[in-house]
């Protein structure tokens, strides 16, 4: 412990100028943030902090480079394993500004990571950078004037490939954890544990490099073999994906990996018949097979499943579409024939309300299914019904920037003056630069537009006075 403190103290006391610059600049960034907050400007947001943190990391990286050379460190009386760890941990003083800025940026950008976890992840990132820095010192051939000096240049190619390989592996594991169905807190803990494992691996690799001089050189047989299997590990998944239909095949199905659902989605009736007769488990990812067929708009599959006396009143039970019934999911298919078939089965299906009081028209409008919106309106769907939150189909279409649906709804007597439970009309949800602003404006009474204009000018005056 004394050794750690000695290195940490030395870093703090002997690098006053460099540390003063980086800590001073960090303070200035925070002062600027609070100043802009005070004057009401949105110039400094979380993303700005994150980008500044990136430069702080670069500064820490370069200001920390070549402090002592390897020869000096090796000459000091301490074990090599400890030297490596001590140096990596004591370098944390150089990375603290980066950690502070990245922490502030992540919190201001509302990144869904707990504060404690974020601090640990940033600390781990700093240790990793420090170890990487150390490696760059060790990995150079220790004797330059050899006959094999040209071959030794290949060390840098090997190093580049190693870094790329490491990043790819970290990215893959990170993505797997991120995309998993685990709860948020478990995902974060898994990330922290994985990062510790990566640091451990990096540490042992650096130590090996420090002890074994031959690793600083490019030994043809050994390194070509190593590079070969690493390259194939990187390239093999890419080739596999390309051979199996590109990136699209990697996109997870909303219905899970069930074979029955796959057969419905691909309209493979033979396979579907075989699987349904086997009694394949049929309630994964919150869908029944009939709901999948309706949402996908596959009429033939729908008819086949219908013959097997499927429950017509089943609803989706997953998080995203919870409570949506047959006519709602048929609205998502954007296939008018599918909707017509469903409406023959469910007479009250046209304005059927989900538990959130959403009609099929609202669902179609919310998910930009303009053709379905048009079809439902022609069938007589009521465009002015309100959901549990007071949203009309028009408000939902505006909120989701579904311009075609907005235009169709306005053409079919959807009222622009209806307010939701927050007291806002569809006009209030319009984006400043929206191209359909005029379409809505002409449906609103003149008094409403003037009142809005007055309010805006008063707010501007208030802002100018406070400045």
């Amino acid at each position, binding site marked *: 412990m004394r050794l750690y403190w000695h290195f940490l103290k*030395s870093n703090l006391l002997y690098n006053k100028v*460099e540390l003063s610059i980086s800590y001073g600049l960090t303070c200035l960034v925070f002062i600027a943030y609070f100043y802009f907050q005070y004057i009401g400007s949105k110039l400094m947001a979380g993303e700005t902090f994150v980008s500044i943190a990136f430069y702080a990391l670069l500064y820490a990286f370069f200001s920390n480079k070549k402090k*002592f050379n390897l020869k*000096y460190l090796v*000459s000091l009386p*301490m074990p090599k394993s400890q030297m490596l760890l001590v140096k990596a941990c004591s370098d944390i003083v150089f990375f603290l500004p980066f950690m502070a800025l990245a922490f502030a940026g992540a919190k201001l950008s509302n990144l869904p990571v707990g504060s404690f976890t974020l601090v640990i992840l940033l600390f781990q990132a700093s240790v990793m950078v420090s170890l990487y820095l150390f490696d760059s010192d060790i990995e150079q051939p*220790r004797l330059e004037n050899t006959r094999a000096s040209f071959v*030794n240049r290949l060390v840098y190619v090997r190093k580049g490939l190693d870094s790329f390989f490491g990043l790819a592996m970290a990215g893959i594991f990170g993505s797997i954890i991120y995309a998993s169905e685990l709860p948020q807190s478990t995902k974060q803990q898994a990330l922290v544990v994985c990062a510790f494992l990566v640091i451990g691996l990096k540490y042992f690799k650096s130590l090996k490099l420090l*002890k074994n001089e031959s690793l600083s050189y490019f030994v*043809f047989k050994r390194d070509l073999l190593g590079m070969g299997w690493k390259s194939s590990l990187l390239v093999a998944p890419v080739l596999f994906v390309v051979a199996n239909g590109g990136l699209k095949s990697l996109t997870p199905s909303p219905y899970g990996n069930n074979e029955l659902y796959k057969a419905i989605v691909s309209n493979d009736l033979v396979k579907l018949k075989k699987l349904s007769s086997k009694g394949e488990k049929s309630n994964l990812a919150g869908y029944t097979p009939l709901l999948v067929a309706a949402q996908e708009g596959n009429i033939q599959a729908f008819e086949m499943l219908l013959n097997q006396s499927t429950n017509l009143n089943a609803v989706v039970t997953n998080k995203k579409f919870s409570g949506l019934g047959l006519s709602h999911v048929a609205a998502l298919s954007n296939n008018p024939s599918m909707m017509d078939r469903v409406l023959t089965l469910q007479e009250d299906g046209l304005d059927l309300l989900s538990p959130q009081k959403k009609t099929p028209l609202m669902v179609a409008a919310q998910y930009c299914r303009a053709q379905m919106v048009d079809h439902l309106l022609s069938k007589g769907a009521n465009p002015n019904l309100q959901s549990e939150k007071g949203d009309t189909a028009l408000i939902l279409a505006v909120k989701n920037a579904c311009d075609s649906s907005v235009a169709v709804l306005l053409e079919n007597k959807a009222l622009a003056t209806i307010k939701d439970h927050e007291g806002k009309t569809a006009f209030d949800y319009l984006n400043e630069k929206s191209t359909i602003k005029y379409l809505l404006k002409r449906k609103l009474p003149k008094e409403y537009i003037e009142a809005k204009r007055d309010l805006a000018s008063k707010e501007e005056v208030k802002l100018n006075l406070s400045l």
Partner: protein
Amino acid sequence: MIVEAKNVIYKVPNGETVYEGLNLEVYQGDFYGVLGKNGAGKTTLMDLLTGYRPISEGSLKVLGEDPISSHRRKKNQIFVLSHDIQIQQSHKIANYLEFTSFFYPQYDKNLEKHLLSYFDLDTNSKFGSLSTGQKVKAQIVAAFSCRPKLIFMDEVTAVLDPESRKRFFDHLKLVKKEKTCSVIMATNIAEDLNGVVDKVLFIDQKKASVHDVADIRHLFNLEDLEQVA
């Protein structure tokens, strides 16, 4: 025995062989000079002795320990003085000495004070502002103040001015009299070794041989060259 090398072979990984069968025995209080032509492998020998590089074959013990081993108990009795060592530019001489003293329990603060004035060094000067000679002098102060049992010196005298060089050798002679410290000094200035070292390790053609100091002129064919001149 302080240093014991038996049939040491060193081959640069993926490169040429530098040593083929190096034998050396250094006892307590011995002062050895290491001489050889440029590129003969003087610095490489120092690297092998300090554990910066591992030997390829043979046996090498420094203070009874393998130099490449991670857990050396007696490393705090060894000091490495080299022109190749790079100290952080922002460190003052005082910082460097304080940082180094931590590792050597036997560090002599009084001697440090004496040597600083002896070599005319200002402790507040930063390494970034020092000349190469001054940097080496700061290392010399640290080396002697640590009171080690063994000092490796790699090409440190060539960058010193005549006065500092004289002071350095005068102090080295004092240390030699104490018989508590051994020194292995690699240099290109053969004259420096007169009256300071006991033996000379001459490196030539991938081999090392031990000679008396008086043989130096003969080793480098200096007599023949003088006749030609």
